[in-house]
């Protein structure tokens, strides 16, 4: 088997030469200086920053705080709005990298907003799939609310599916007691796949000012510190729901990617790791084949079949 086909994976709407993509919010719309450091064509796909119906100014600064083995962010879905993204951001990305699959992360404060953004985004011809962000902890209306109530999550998924012209991945929040219940609900709503996990709600306090560091007070925790939570949740959900999972949460290396696969993932997204290592994605893609060799993994698609095909018998 060639090195190329060993990494290829197929998910609804996403025929990927490798499973690695930058996570939403950590790579803008590809319009940042990471793009000077490697060819974005090397990526399996790219997940772009959340798009909302209207432009959003986001939260007050500071928006970033470091924690041991993690980062808290409270950006608050700052984005120029779906129309500007479709007019100015995506055409540039599409023109520069015509074969790079784009996954559009979409968010809203109401169901109607989500539906409208999904309609416009999916009709653009420039995105291969939607990632429905029902899990942002940094906005006060909508956001995570949609991801913590199974019934609301199911309704929203159904409404978005009805208008979307491309497959819909629902991005789950880890800020719930029973992630399996939410996953089952969005599956019942017709989701084509899942994406997990978004950040965990957290806070840090400045000892000198005695006040929260972040302007928004709370923020979302990401990075290697959350990886075991992601692995556990992906493991639980993949056993209960028959949908492909794009895994994220603290992935930094090829070994981390394979751990996600063994938990039940079909593809992976990399966020926080970029901040220390701007070439995290291409570095991981390059390292995967030899790590797979070490672990006697012939191809990722075989690994998916082995892990997920094995469910009926395990436990």
């Amino acid at each position, binding site marked *: 088997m060639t090195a190329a086909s060993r990494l290829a994976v197929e998910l609804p709407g996403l025929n990927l030469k490798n499973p690695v993509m930058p996570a939403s*919010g*950590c*790579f*803008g719309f590809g*319009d*940042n*200086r*990471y793009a*000077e*450091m490697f060819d974005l064509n090397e990526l399996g796909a790219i997940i772009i*920053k959340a798009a909302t119906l209207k*432009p959003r*100014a*986001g939260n007050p*600064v*500071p*928006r*970033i*705080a*470091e924690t*041991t*083995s*993690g*980062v808290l*962010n409270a*950006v608050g879905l*700052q984005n*120029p709005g779906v129309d500007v993204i479709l007019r100015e951001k995506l055409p540039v990305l599409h023109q520069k990298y015509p074969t790079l699959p784009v996954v559009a992360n979409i968010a809203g404060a109401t169901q109607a907003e989500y539906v409208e953004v999904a309609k416009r985004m999916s009709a653009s011809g420039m995105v291969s799939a939607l990632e429905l962000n029902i899990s942002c902890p940094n906005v006060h209306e909508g956001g995570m609310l949609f991801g913590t109530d199974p019934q609301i999550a199911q309704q929203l998924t159904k409404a978005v599916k009805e208008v979307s012209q491309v497959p819909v991945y629902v991005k789950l929040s880890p800020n719930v007691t029973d992630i399996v219940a939410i996953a089952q609900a969005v599956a019942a709503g017709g989701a084509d796949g899942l994406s997990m996990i978004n950040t965990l709600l957290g806070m840090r306090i400045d000892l000198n000012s005695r006040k929260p560091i972040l302007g928004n007070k709370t923020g979302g925790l990401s*990075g*290697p510190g959350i990886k075991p939570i992601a692995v556990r949740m992906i493991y639980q959900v993949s056993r209960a729901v028959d949908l492909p999972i794009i895994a994220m949460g603290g992935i930094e290396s090829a070994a981390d990617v394979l751990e996600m696969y063994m938990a039940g993932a079909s593809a992976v997204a990399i966020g*926080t790791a*970029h*901040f*220390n*290592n*701007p*070439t995290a994605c291409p570095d991981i893609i390059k390292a995967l084949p030899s790590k797979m060799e070490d672990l006697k993994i012939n191809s990722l698609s075989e690994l998916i079949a082995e892990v997920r095909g094995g469910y009926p018998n395990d436990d």
Partner: protein
Amino acid sequence: MLTKSDMRIIAQEELAPSIYRIVLYGKFDYAQARPGCFVMLKLPDGTYQLRRPLAIAALAPLQETITLIYRVVGDGTHLLQQTAVGAQLNILGPLGNGFPIENVESTENVLLVGGGTGVPPLMLLAQALKDKGCKVTTAIGFRTAALIFGEKEFEDNGQLLLATDDGSKGFQGNVGQLLATQPEQTYTKVYACGPNGLLQMVQTRFAGTTAEIYLSLESRMACGVGACEGCVVSTKDGTYNKRVCVEGPVFNGREVRL
């Protein structure tokens, strides 16, 4: 070109209590680096997820070195201070727009204003402006005489006005009060870097003049390359915030909202 490369620490010394100067040797795009640009330094311990932004204080393209000057304020800078000469540090840079100096004429009278850790980028700027032949005046403030650094560098490149809060050296008071005692002068350009209070003082003081005002801002950063929207600042022209790491760190002082 933006690169990340391992650079070797060839010198590290204390300039004043808790202020250190570190010299790094190695591959770097020296030609692209300009006064006001910064680097993102990866801490030599994998539990840290964020690089630290530090301004370039000096550049020596022939010797292939860059100099950073930092104050130990927290865990990251403490670790940096503990790192021995000879160790490698991964440096991402050069980053940011830097101070606009292309159109500065040799006949111009320019003012540099700084305080605390806003002083390092002004050192490189003072030298570049002097090389252009400008008349450079630098006004910098510190808490007390023991904390002063950069005196010689600024004196070599023009006139230096010093202020200390406690009056232990130079003018007693802050830089704003120091400037108020100076005879009225027509500066064509004013460049400032330091705490927000100092930058606001510069904004107000020169608002009624014809001087171009350039302010270098700080912000908490995650990526440093315009990817995360973590470092934004708002400007008078609209709601969509500007990123300090890409559109800055230097902003037109008449547009930026502090």
